């Protein structure tokens, strides 16, 4: 995860580096225009309803991707976020439907469940010193089995509108789920980029030893990162419950890959070499616009897939090219 070279090439505030840092955003805008001006997709694509749906569909994905950012800032891929989100949605769903608990209590339970899993993982990894990849993978598998054991592969349905409205209705013309996810993403952004905790977290990702020598409690910060990650995944889970009107019965691994893609893409935006919340937002929009636009144009499924792959390569290539244009491309050792 280190990229001292890319950092090396950074020339803060040089306007040219802006090209590199916003290459993906430019690509998002270009793509938007292409689909908006395309006669087949155009009218529908730019309709308020379509744009509303487009962003509303990304609320949960945003939460899970942001949940990945915290451990990744400290240099750790957390393979468990998808599974945690799925299980939180099951916990909240079961609390409402099978145990008849009031919705706010059930939702809180779901989120707290995520926090607890995150906390356990954090304790294992930061204090127990176990390999983080295997620990998160193991927990993800374990949780997946737990979900299957509880649900038997059947979804928990019958979530009252009190909660599902959050997933389907608007406030001031903006989907509620987007507002909620946006506010939480804002808090996450704040934590990561505007607080000492965030600075230390990224410092750990760059050089844990040095950070420790500077007097930061590295273990505690790592633990907190996992708690934040688990909590965010838990929130993702309860939002998923609201959006889907039922608790998923799959193991959540499906949610991992898109989130991972978004977070990795975020490392080529804004703060090059590091994941960031605004970067994740841009990356998610990039992917969402591609999918929506191509579906509206009606290309066959394999075209969409190939286009998605090509889009990733283009994004990473454009970012790289922009960097070279700034003339500060470093020797890559």
């Amino acid at each position, binding site marked *: 995860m280190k990229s001292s070279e890319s*950092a090396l090439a950074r020339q803060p505030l040089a306007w040219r580096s802006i090209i590199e840092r916003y290459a993906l955003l430019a690509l998002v805008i270009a793509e938007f225009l292409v689909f908006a001006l395309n006669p087949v997709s155009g009218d529908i694509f730019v309709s308020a309803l379509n744009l509303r749906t487009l962003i509303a569909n990304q609320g949960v994905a945003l939460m899970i991707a942001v949940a990945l950012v915290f451990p990744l800032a400290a240099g750790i891929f957390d393979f468990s976020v998808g599974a945690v989100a799925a299980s939180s949605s099951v916990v909240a769903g079961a609390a409402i439907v099978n145990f008849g608990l009031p919705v706010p209590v059930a939702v809180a339970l779901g989120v707290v469940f995520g926090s607890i899993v995150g906390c356990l993982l954090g304790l294992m990894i930061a204090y127990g010193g176990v390999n983080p990849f295997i620990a998160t993978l193991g927990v993800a598998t374990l949780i997946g089995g737990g979900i299957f054991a509880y649900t038997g592969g059947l979804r928990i349905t019958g979530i009252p509108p009190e909660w599902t409205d959050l997933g389907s209705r608007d406030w001031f013309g903006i989907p509620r789920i987007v507002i909620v996810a946006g506010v939480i993403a804002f808090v996450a952004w704040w934590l990561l980029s505007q*607080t*000492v905790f965030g600075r230390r977290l990224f*410092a750990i990702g*760059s050089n844990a*030893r*040095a950070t420790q*020598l*500077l*007097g930061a409690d590295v273990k505690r910060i790592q633990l907190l990162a996992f708690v934040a990650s688990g909590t965010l995944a838990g929130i993702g889970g309860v939002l998923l419950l609201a959006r889907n009107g039922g608790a998923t019965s799959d193991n959540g691994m499906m949610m991992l890959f898109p989130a991972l893609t978004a977070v990795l893409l975020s490392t080529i935006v804004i703060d090059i070499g590091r994941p960031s919340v605004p970067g994740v937002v841009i990356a998610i929009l990039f992917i969402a616009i591609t999918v929506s636009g191509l579906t509206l144009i009606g290309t066959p499924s394999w075209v969409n897939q190939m286009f998605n792959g090509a889009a990733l390569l283009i994004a990473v290539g454009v970012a790289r090219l922009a960097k070279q244009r700034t003339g500060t491309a470093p020797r890559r050792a």
Partner: protein
Amino acid sequence: MLRVTRLSKTYSTTVVNSVDWQLEAGRVHALLGGNGSGKSTLLKMIAGVVPADPGGEIELLGQRYDSEKYGPHASRALRFVHQDLALVDDLSIADNFGLAREFPRSRLGRIDDRALVTHVASELAKRGLDLDPRLPVASLRSADRTLVAIARALDGIGDGPTTLVLDEPTASLPIDEVVRLFDSIRALRDGGHSVVFVSHRLSEVAEIADDVTILRDGRVVGRGPIAEFSESRIVELIAGHVRGERTTHLGHARNDGHAALVATDILAGPLKGVDITVRSGEIVGLAGLVGSGRSSLLRAIFGDLDGAGAIAVDGVPTSIRSTGDAVRARIALVPEDRQRDAAFLDRPVWENLSAAVLTRYRRWGRLSARQERSDAPAIMHEYRVRAPSPAISLAALSGGNQQKVIVARWMSADPRVLLLDEPTQGVDAVARDEIHELVRAAARRGTAVVVVSSDLDELEELSDRVLVLVDGRIARELTGSDVNRGLITTAMHETGVPS
């Protein structure tokens, strides 16, 4: 101000052994000892970043802590420049300052980056550093990294009684920066603060210290006011035996050697056209201020810096476009930044030692790790590397011992041209002599050696000839009896020669 009692640290062996130590306000305290004697470990325990063995005690500003309960939070009145500087490469200089002390906050509790940058800029300016605080630390050159770490430790000092701990800050610092640092230290001392100073350069110790404590094998073997210790006694205490006769260098350039390295019109980085010729068997010193282009010259010759110029090795014009070309031409470079440019910290010592001569260990197409391992102890002995075992990872070695490993790595490759950039930084006096002797031995075998060092004594002892770089050009060539501290210093400060 600070008192430690019965402080110990045990890894696989006990490296700090029941140390009692006391610092007084208004004094500069030198902590001395050979490589691996436990200096850095002791200081890290005081910083609270390495947990001490239970049973000891640390008393700070009248507060007492049991050694196992002591943590970094307790040590706010302490400021550190650790041996490996503890800089976070991917973060900006400003953030590195913030991490070590505190981040200024705006009303809403968010980090006030603007205030931080302004503050850090003024702190840097105070130390004579003209750097943009928003630059990532990774982009700094080696000397500036040390200076930034020092500036960071000095940031805001003076608000209360403070102890400044400097673990070998001068190891690769040029002379005028050392002078500046000493001025700061004296100012602090006169302000009633205490300073801990670790160095292997005894001349510096004599110049700045009021008290000394000497460690050997983790135990205190001597302490008291500096006046009570002569240089030879210090060396004896450090080494545990009387220092052997120092082979004084004759200072005669060998004139019989042919030109082993000829580099003409090197234009790269800050270099503005440098010609350099080194004869076989000759040791050429390179002197200069920070930024004069010494490291750049070595890197350009080694193919690590893009630029123009012609290079001939043993009379054969050689195109060196990459480090691979240089290695094939049997050129070796010991880089100045060990951590970033040379060390495989997570790998065992034997692997670090054999890294430059792997082809030697090929047996029927396969790499004989057994042979590598069994060769390691002899090399370690030769270069005085102190480590429990060649199989221990490099990160577990003390700074000086890591440096010896890197020097040994390249010298044992038996190169035609040996480029040494600050080769003995952090190496203790005894081992330093030893390495010098090995360098001379290599020269006697016909190797052409170029040494860059900020330690002018080293240049004086080692070089047949000294070239002084000023602003990317060779400003002076000193030979014979001219090779001495005084003349080198003068030449370094001459303004650039007219082109």
